């Protein structure tokens, strides 16, 4: 279980606080109005945004004071998920160990991951030689070899067209199911949330609400969400 315990984050006027427990293996959409702090919450969990108070626990480990790279977390950002001067295979290989040369076995793992996301034969290409969808796939190949328990998506597919985005979300859904990864994704689009998540975490007016089933919440939105959804 991922436990967000009495979190409190302040940045000038901005404030976000609350408690939420997320079951291991759950797929959770983080929804809420613009500026509510969806990205900030993910950055806090990943370790890029310091907490003013509160704790972040995974299983029984306290992650609060750990450096981003030492947390059991893989994260995809809105942009900058690949190093533009490295090939697909090199980028994915960074997920195993960025600080040393990979062993032949590890290279094999990378190759398998690349073929799993459907990029076989493109190992030697650089990101600029790939389409937007292929870049997303390369980033997912890295997530696969990282073998972390949690995957955080901060709208990495926002720049893709609707069909491609749906395709990527389906791939993510398959991957997290195969590897039993717990997923948290920021979402602006209720359809995305319905497509792959089973729970939603609502952030509104500086408060973090506990997770609730996706379909119920979106069908009968609470007041804080209704205005945002426009229903």
């Amino acid at each position, binding site marked *: 279980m991922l436990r967000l315990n009495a979190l409190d984050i302040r*940045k000038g006027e*901005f404030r976000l606080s609350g408690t939420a427990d997320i079951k291991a293996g759950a797929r959770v959409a983080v929804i809420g109005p*613009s*500026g*509510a*702090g*969806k*990205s*900030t919450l993910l*950055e806090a969990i*990943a*370790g*890029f*945004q310091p907490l003013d108070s509160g704790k972040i626990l995974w299983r029984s480990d306290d992650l609060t004071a750990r*450096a*981003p*790279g*030492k947390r059991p*977390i*893989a*994260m995809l*950002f*809105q942009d*900058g*998920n690949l*190093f*533009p*001067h*490295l090939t697909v295979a090199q980028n994915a290989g*960074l*997920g195993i160990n*960025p*600080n040393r040369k990979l062993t032949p076995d590890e290279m094999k793992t990378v190759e398998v991951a690349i073929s799993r996301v459907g990029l076989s034969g493109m190992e030697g290409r*650089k990101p*600029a030689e790939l389409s937007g969808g292929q870049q997303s796939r390369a980033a997912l190949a890295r997530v696969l070899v*990282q073998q972390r328990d949690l995957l955080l998506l901060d709208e990495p597919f926002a720049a893709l067209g609707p069909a491609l985005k749906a395709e990527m979300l389906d791939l993510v859904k398959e991957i997290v199911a195969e590897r039993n990864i717990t997923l948290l994704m920021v979402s602006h689009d209720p359809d995305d949330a319905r497509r792959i998540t089973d729970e939603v975490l609502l952030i509104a007016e500086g408060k973090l609400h506990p997770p609730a089933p996706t379909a119920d919440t979106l069908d009968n939105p609470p007041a804080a969400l209704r205005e945002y959804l426009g229903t």
Partner: protein
Amino acid sequence: MARSAQPITLPVVAIWPGTCAALGVALLVLGTLVAVALRADDLSGFAAADWAALRFTLVQACLSAFLSVALAIPVAKALARRRFFGRRVLITLLGAPFILPVIVAILGLLAVFGRSGWMSDLLGLAGLPPVQIYGLHGVVIAHVFFNLPLATRLILQGWQEIPAERFRLAAQLNAGPRAMWQLTEAPMLRQVVPGTAAVIFAICLSSFAVALTLGGGPKATTIELAIYQAFHFDFDLGRAAMLSGVQLVLTVVAAFLALKASSSEGFGAGLDRAVIRWDGKGTCARIIDGFWIAAAALFLMLPLLAVLISGLPGLVSLPASVWGATWVSLQVAALSTVFLLCVALPLSASIALGRKRLGEVAGILGLAASPLVIGTGLFVMVYPYIDPFLLALPVTALVNMVMALPFALRILVPRMRQVLHHNARLALALDMNGRTFWRRVLLPRCRAQIGFAAGLTAALSLGDLGVIALFADPEVATLPLQVYRLMGAYRMEAAQGAALLLFVISMGAFWILDRGGRLHAEA
């Protein structure tokens, strides 16, 4: 959006190496100063000749700054509003004097404006006496030659930063030249000109090579030159130290003023974009602009052409001493470039990570540090223990590094900031360590800028005629010093040939390093 609240740049590489590098440079510059100050006799020893040197230093720097800026304003204006064939090349050439060895330019200027130069020949045809280039006006002409392009670039940048809407609005209001001046140009110039003038003033204060070759004598000696003379001819360390102290006060004040007054950077991109304007369509305006562009181009190109033409005959029969000096120069430049990278890379990363104070310190020190003062200080420190002549080359390389550092930082820091901003989160999320980040991300991503900075340093070092003149014994010389010695021995053909060689080598070194950095580098 929440996205706008980006975290401050994450410390993905260590800060301390940059801090150490900055401390090292500060120690070198300030340590030599202390050494100088301890040696300096009381200021009552400030003789009439020293007052004359101080006065001349200030007068020539003021005149050079004033003339460079005054001439640069119409040239920049013409370049900003005209499009013509060769405009890009001309603007690129405006950057060339920066890496042009001073001694090469001086030989070129002599060939054009000297007693037996082209100008005098022309005047002779009209029955007029030849021009006299030695003395105050020679020094000022050389300084304007070097700084007019710099001033033009800075002011041109100011012109291009005026929002296009303002010109459109002025055109809509049917503004005449006077109103156009008040609405668009005057406010920009008020912002750009003081900083530009202050920078040029500061540069000209520590003029050494120009004063050494075109000045001299009691009437045309700068303080830097006086330090050299006290040192070289009289071996009066006390007086050299005292003059160094004076020079230091001057340059620190000037560097401080220059940094205060200028905010824009000299390596602005996008200078080749012509401003679209709706005024200046008249024939008169066209003729005036054409005149300024042609005059500036001639003034800058003729001396270079002269170096080429007069150097070719000497190039085939260069004395062996020139080849020896070339080898020495290449070694010094290589060493200086290595020093620079060792200091500038960690330092610029630390500055990019938010340690802005380090950058300011390095900027002030780089501008204020006078090669002759550092040289004097090091000499004073080492000569009781070892023969200073043994250290001539490493010391020259070290001093060249300090001189190039502010420029290297201006090139490296913005790019490093960009790379860190884009890649630090991902690297941290992957648990990449600092050393790997340097090797796999920062260095490859900054290759073009590293090549540019290294090329600039190598070219500056190759062309430098400063501290080496202080230290070198008669056996050892860098190429610029050898050119100077050949001139002093009235072997003009050999000097001109060697100057052409120096010109080719410095431009070549710059080109190779800059090119090497950009080769296969991804955007």
